[in-house]
């Protein structure tokens, strides 16, 4: 299969190819729930926005299999909405999946479109792997009863809904008012950059774990490719000695490093004794946390 680069994001063909997959996943996963038409449209739009954002991220590898990726991404969008509307149902689903993966009386298959289906094992296992808590024992028993009574094989969502019905957990009930849950709005007073908001941002950067701080700051560059650390100093957000202390780098070493900034990920990975991909993941986590703490959104 041809790999897709971020340039393809500009091509409407990618969206055209993704939309039928998105529609299929939304229809399949939400068919038992009454989903208002406008919310359905918003789910589709949010999936497209996330896909384009992913394709335009220069740090990430190109997507290998678009259809599978889009199916998984659409499921994530639906999961995000479900957990916001009905956290109890979402937690129940986690529990069901945990039992499916840790109890050898069940078997699980993930289909090409990302759908997860489960059934009972036909032969008794010798290993007897079980989750040994009372809640898990009860849940496993309920799941076995459901799978014995009805269809032998179920989609996990269907199984969760059945368990929910028997345990008094309500299925998610959606309304048009839930549309805002899909794309949290940017806080207007924070959207406008000001020295105060940058200071707040900096104080949140200080609160990041060290590895996330390093992954974020040592690599951060402006549109011209220059490190932003000199800009932070020039804007009087932080002094050089404070920067060195924040990064827990000796002053002498930091001065030497200053002229090499921004560092490439491989260089940061070497300093931290981790892989380049882990550096990227740490930076993503840092950005996500900063956004949530400061009310920013992309």
């Amino acid at each position, binding site marked *: 299969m041809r790999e897709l680069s971020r340039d393809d994001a500009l091509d409407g063909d990618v969206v055209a190819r993704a939309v039928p997959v998105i529609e299929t996943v939304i229809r399949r996963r939400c068919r038992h729930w009454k989903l208002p038409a406008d919310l359905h449209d918003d789910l589709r739009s949010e999936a497209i926005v996330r896909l384009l954002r992913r394709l335009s991220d220069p740090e990430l590898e190109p997507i290998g299999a678009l259809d599978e990726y889009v199916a998984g991404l659409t499921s994530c969008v639906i999961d995000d909405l479900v957990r916001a509307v009905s956290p109890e149902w979402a937690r129940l689903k986690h*529990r069901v*999946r945990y039992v499916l993966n*840790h109890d050898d009386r069940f078997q699980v298959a993930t289909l090409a479109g990302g759908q997860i289906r489960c059934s009972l094992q036909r032969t008794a296992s010798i290993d007897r792997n079980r989750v040994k808590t009372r809640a898990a024992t009860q849940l496993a028993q309920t799941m076995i009863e459901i799978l014995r009574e009805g269809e032998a094989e179920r989609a996990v969502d269907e199984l969760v809904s059945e368990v929910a019905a028997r345990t008094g957990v309500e299925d998610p009930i959606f309304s048009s008012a839930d549309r805002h849950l899909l794309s949290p709005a940017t806080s207007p007073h924070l959207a406008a*950059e000001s020295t105060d908001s940058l200071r707040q*941002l900096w104080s949140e950067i200080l609160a990041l774990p060290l590895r996330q701080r390093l992954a974020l700051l040592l690599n951060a560059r402006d549109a011209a490719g220059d490190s932003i650390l000199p*800009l932070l100093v020039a804007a009087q957000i932080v002094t050089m000695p404070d920067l060195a202390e924040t990064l827990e780098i000796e002053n002498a070493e930091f001065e030497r490093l200053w002229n090499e900034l921004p560092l490439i990920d491989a260089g940061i990975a070497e300093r931290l004794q981790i892989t380049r991909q882990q550096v990227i993941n740490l930076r993503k986590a840092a*950005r*996500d946390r900063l956004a949530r703490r400061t009310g920013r959104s*992309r």
Partner: protein
Amino acid sequence: MNEKLSRRESIADALGVGRGDHPSYEMLEQFVDGTADDVMREIIDSHRQVCTNCDAELRDLMSFSGRARGSTALYRLGAAVAAIALIIAGAVFLRRATTTKKPVRDLPTRTTIASTYGREDWDAAVRTTLARGAIERPAILADLRPSADVLRTPNTPDTRPTMSPVGAVIEETAPLLTWPVARGRFVVSVFDGFKRVARSGVLRSAEWRVSPPLARGRTYTWQVEIRRGDSVELLPSPPAPAALFHVLDESDAAELAEARRRFPNDHLLLGVLYARAGMQQEAVGELREHHGHIAASVEHW
């Protein structure tokens, strides 16, 4: 002015601040099972500090799976108790079978109160609280609130009401620490015994969210280094007592999460459970409206 503005925008843009995705179920499962590598653990820990949904999901899954230390211990304890009970029952049965039958004496019937919460310990705790109209202070709070150094003069201001959290049990593993000094540069350290477990960078505002997250079930001491020019002061400074707080253990945290999930509007139950865990402010908050006299007993701890 425009140049300055564009410079600021470029700083925020370059940092690329933007919301990412929540951890996937697979990531949560690896975290719970202890198979996630340290970077993934750090990413999830960092995310759960700012995402209450994910934090609640993770706690629920840990409790459910028995991977939370406390719940595993409780489960094993329960199993052990059940086993001992079976042995005793068997022994009693054998003894009865081999001894002469004695006339059965009428014993008073034990009143059984129907379970309200589906948990005997909760039923009992609420029943006792209603009967007494008050809740006793849990012992842990005495440990967390040492008296000031004996040499302290009566006029020395007490720092306890102004640093936060101090002398308290908290639920969060990454609490926000605040202190009442507006100016200066600050460095915060958190200790478990004599071992420093967290340290901030240099801060300019009087608050810091602890990172990395703290282990549960431990008592911590914290202090703030205040730097002004070349001088360095410590907060709290002797003879004021050390600033201590305790992070709720896994089992109590899971219990509270279960109560909030199952009975979100039952302020009496939540208040009793918070009080039992030593979370004074939260207990008073729950009890104040409908159970003022009980709330008052907690306020006076």
